[in-house]
Structures are given as C-alpha cells and as structure tokens.
C-alpha cells in the first residue's frame, strides 16, 4: 500500500464522514468537521506567514546579505511600524483601551473609501453605457442573415444594420432595465396604473432573473457532488483498488 493510496483512502473516509450529515448529524460528521476546521486554520496560519508575511514584510524589513548570486539588499526598518499599528486592533478586547482599535480600522476604511468613486465608475460605467442600445430597426428584414462563409465585407455590411429581431431583443433589454429600476422606487407612492404595471413587471423580471441564478447555482452544486463521486468511484475505487486506468 503506497502513500498516495493511503492519502486517497483518508480523503474517501472524510468525504463519507462529511456526507453522513445528509442522513443525520452523526459523531462521524462532527469528527471530520473538526479535523477539517483544524486543518484549514492551521494551514492558513502557516500559509499566511510563508506566502505573504515572510516574503512581503519580514524579508524586506530585515534585508539580505550578499551571497554568490544575489547582491545585498538594505533592510527597510520602517516596516516595523506596521506591527504596533496592527496590534492596536487587539485592543478591542480591553474596555479601557478599545478606542485604540479604531485607529487601524480607520486607516483601512479611509483607504477603502478613497478608492470608491473611481472604483464604482470603472465597475458600473461600462455596464450603464452598454444598457443604452438602439431600439429602432434600420431595415425591415426580421432575422439577421446567416454569415457563415461570407467574405468579411459582406459580414461587416450585415453587422452595420439593426434587424427587427435585434431591435426587439434590445427593447426587452431596455424595458427590463427600466422596469427593474422602477421596482426600487420606495420613496413615494405609485399611483399611475402605467407606473404600477411597469413596477410589477420589474418584480416579475427580477424573479425570472433569480430563477436563472438559482439554476446556475444548483448546476454548480451538482458539479461538486459529481466531483466527490468521481473521487470515490474512479480515483479511489477504480484506479486505486481495482488498478484500472481511469
């Protein structure tokens, strides 16, 4: 029995243990849950030091002496100031000194808030501009002609027109944007029947959107179950025990 197979077997036991919660909450489930949490916490602690704090902070703070291939690098001892600032966060546990914990939080909030105007616009600006689409067709032809195998000039000529089917699609987009926006008019009473209708449509369209999101989410979750089954049946049972290549 080699090391890889032992590793796989432990993984299979952990999978079965965690899935036993589907039957009911068992001691087996609790056991593996605690192992998982402990492993994740321990791994994270070590990884944060080895992957981030050591190379990005400690090594740069203490500098480096020259060796055969690398020149010496002077230490940036100002980086040491980050330690007391960071430690101030822990004063939250002291009633007397907890006001000091607001200093690092304030620095983080200030940095974050300062970025938000530009960040918001870079994220949503292109989407807002993309929602403003033409809704009047430029040709009476309904469908976009097939372009497979056509020369580039003809494809470009077709692309320059707005066909009726495309205009209808754009109308759906514009109506969806406006009606969904109208759904969030909470500050005043909606009296007009037209506005009420648009508002209701917005609600329905939101529900349809949520349904699509739910479908995509479920598909993602199923993929995770299937992956676990693949791990048990193919990687462990078929390839590990029966020694049949997957």
């Amino acid at each position, binding site marked *: 029995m080699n090391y890889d197979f032992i590793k796989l077997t432990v993984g299979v036991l952990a999978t079965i243990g965690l899935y036993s919660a*589907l*039957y009911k909450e068992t001691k087996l489930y609790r056991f593996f849950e605690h192992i998982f949490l402990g492993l*994740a916490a321990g*791994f*994270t602690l070590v*990884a*944060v030091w080895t*992957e*981030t704090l050591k*190379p*990005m902070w400690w*090594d*740069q703070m203490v500098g480096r002496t020259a*060796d*055969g*291939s*690398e020149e010496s690098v002077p230490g940036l001892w100002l980086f040491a100031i980050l330690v007391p600032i960071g430690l101030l966060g822990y004063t939250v546990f002291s009633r007397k000194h907890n006001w000091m914990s607001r200093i690092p939080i304030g620095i983080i909030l200030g*940095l*974050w808030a300062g*970025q938000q105007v530009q*960040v*918001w616009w*870079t*994220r949503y600006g*292109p*989407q807002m*501009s*993309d929602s403003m689409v033409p809704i009047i067709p430029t040709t009476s032809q309904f469908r976009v002609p097939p*372009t*497979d*195998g*056509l*020369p*580039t000039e003809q*494809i470009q000529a077709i692309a320059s027109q707005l066909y009726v089917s495309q205009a209808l699609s754009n109308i759906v987009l514009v109506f969806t944007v406006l009606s969904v926006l109208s759904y969030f008019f909470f500050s005043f009473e909606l009296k007009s029947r037209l506005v009420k209708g648009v508002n209701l449509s917005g609600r329905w369209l939101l529900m349809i*959107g949520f349904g*699509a*999101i739910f479908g*995509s*989410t*479920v*598909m*993602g*979750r*199923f*993929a*995770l*179950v*299937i*992956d*676990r*089954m*693949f791990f*048990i*049946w*193919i990687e462990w049972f*078929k390839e590990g025990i029966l020694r049949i290549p997957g």
Partner: protein
Amino acid sequence: MNLLRLGKILQGVPRQALYTMLIVVASVPLFFRVEVPNSPDQPAIDLFVTLNTIPAERPVLVESDWTLSSRGESMGQMEALLRIMMRRNVKFVLYSGADPQAPQVARNVIRRINAERKRAGQPEYKKWVDWVDAGYYPDLAGLANAMATDIRRAFAGRQDTNERGSMQDIFRSPVLQNVKSISDVALLVNVHASGTIDILNERLYRRVPLASMCTGVMGPQSMPYYASGQLVGISVGLKGVYDLEQMMEYGVVGKSIRERPHPKTIVSSNHDEIVIQPFTGQKNYDRAARYYFSLHFAMTLMIVAIIAGNIGMILTRKPKRKGGQ
C-alpha cells in the same frame, strides 16, 4: 388510491431517499464515456480564441482564487487553461488573492499537468523559465491598485527558485524580465469561486485584458462584465469547461472561413477570419467530459423531483370554501 393520498406520497418522499437517488445518478454515468452533444457558448469561444491568439512572447497573469471546495468546476477550468497555455508556450505568473490555500492547490494542478506532458513525451513546463510563482496576497484590492500603477512594485520582493536552485527576484526570470508595466502583460485570467473578478474589474479594466473562469455560482454575477466588454471572455462552471475541452478537440474558425479542420469545428460568431487548429492527438477531453454526462442525470432528477413535489402540492391543496368562510 385516491388523489389526496397520492399527493401526500409525492410530497412525503424522505430526503434520505432523494439523496440516495442523487448519489446513484451522479455516480453511475461516471463509468461511461459519452460525448454529450454540445454547442459552446460565445463567451467561452471568445475566451478560447483570446487564449489562442495572444502573443506567446508576452506573459499571462493567472490569478488562481479557488480551493478544493470548488474542485468540481475550478480544477477543470485550471487544467484546460494550463493545457492551452503550455501547448502554445505562453509563459505565465501564478498568484492568488482570495485564499491562502489557493496557491498550493494550483501548484498541484501544474505538477499533474506536467506529469501528463511527460507521459505524452512533451517537454516539461519549467518553473522560473516558463512560469513563476508569486504566491498569495491577502489584500487583493491593494495588490490590484499597485499593479495598475507599478507592477514591479506590486510584486516587489517576491522570489522564486531559479534554474540553479537558489531564490531570486521573479523579475529576473525569463517570464517577467521584459515586463515594465501592466500593459506589457498579454492577459489576466482569473480562475475564481468568489467575487474577485469584481475587484479586478474595478481596478484593472482598460489597463490589461481581463478574462474570467468562474464557478456556476459566480456566473450570473460575472456575466454582465462580458456583456459590457469588461471581460474578453468567460467560461462559466462545468458547461464552460466542457466548451473549452470541445474547442481544444475540434478547433474554432471565424464566420467567413469555409474550410474547416474538422466537421465538428466550432464557428465563432464574433470573429471573421480566424482559424484555430484543434490539438489533435492530445488529451483534450478530461474532467468536464466525464462530469457533464452525470450532470444531465442529476439535473433530470431534480426536475422530476420538482414536478412531483408540485403535483403533490396541488393534489393535497384543500379546496377553497365559497363565500370566504
């Protein structure tokens, strides 16, 4: 059997029975290799075309923000991405900005794909020469800001093992030695299971082409970026991986190309004259092809269960009394 009783039976199926059925329908199809008919989505085609047309001499930034909790989808994404880049000899930088476990998970995938290449008689994709490891960054927003202003300062101090086995600054590697700013990077691909693509879009849009390979859960949140041109391409969930595997197998051509490398070659409606040859004779179909067949059975089970539950609800619904009593 009266309808009320039937309705109660349909509504009262124990959840343990449903879970058992799910495990059976998710497991049995895994033993069969079936090529499920599929038409790749345009966002995935655009991603594939981008990966196959970026200049090979400029590096790609691979931000790997997934762990084993989304292995079912993200590992297939990562494998497909690595296979395409390695077959084109595109150099890349690996880093993570979402989870401390993410870099190690990605390194394991690179090791496995390298072993696969070795078995197929292909050259190994060498660390330092072909790719470098820039590790984990706990503050992605800060990193992305720094990348936008000065990429050398953003990754400053990062070292990796060079060919001689000693640690050296990653900007001395063949991968990054010519990179002076973010615009020298060909593409940034985010393999993610959380909202990291939001942060990247907010800070790096228009500075470097961005692409997303996300889970099904993140798909609806990420797709508007593609629609508005903020992403050059996107592959969503298992379907996205299957799309990529299919395109690797059959290639992609533009609309105006008449001669196709294979009868099943995919036609991109967003491109005119491109021809991307299939990776013939190589391992293209892998994880997604295995899972996709099972996924259809699992989805069918869910649809059947929803219909049965709704029929049960209708049958057991008490008739309304007249006069509102």
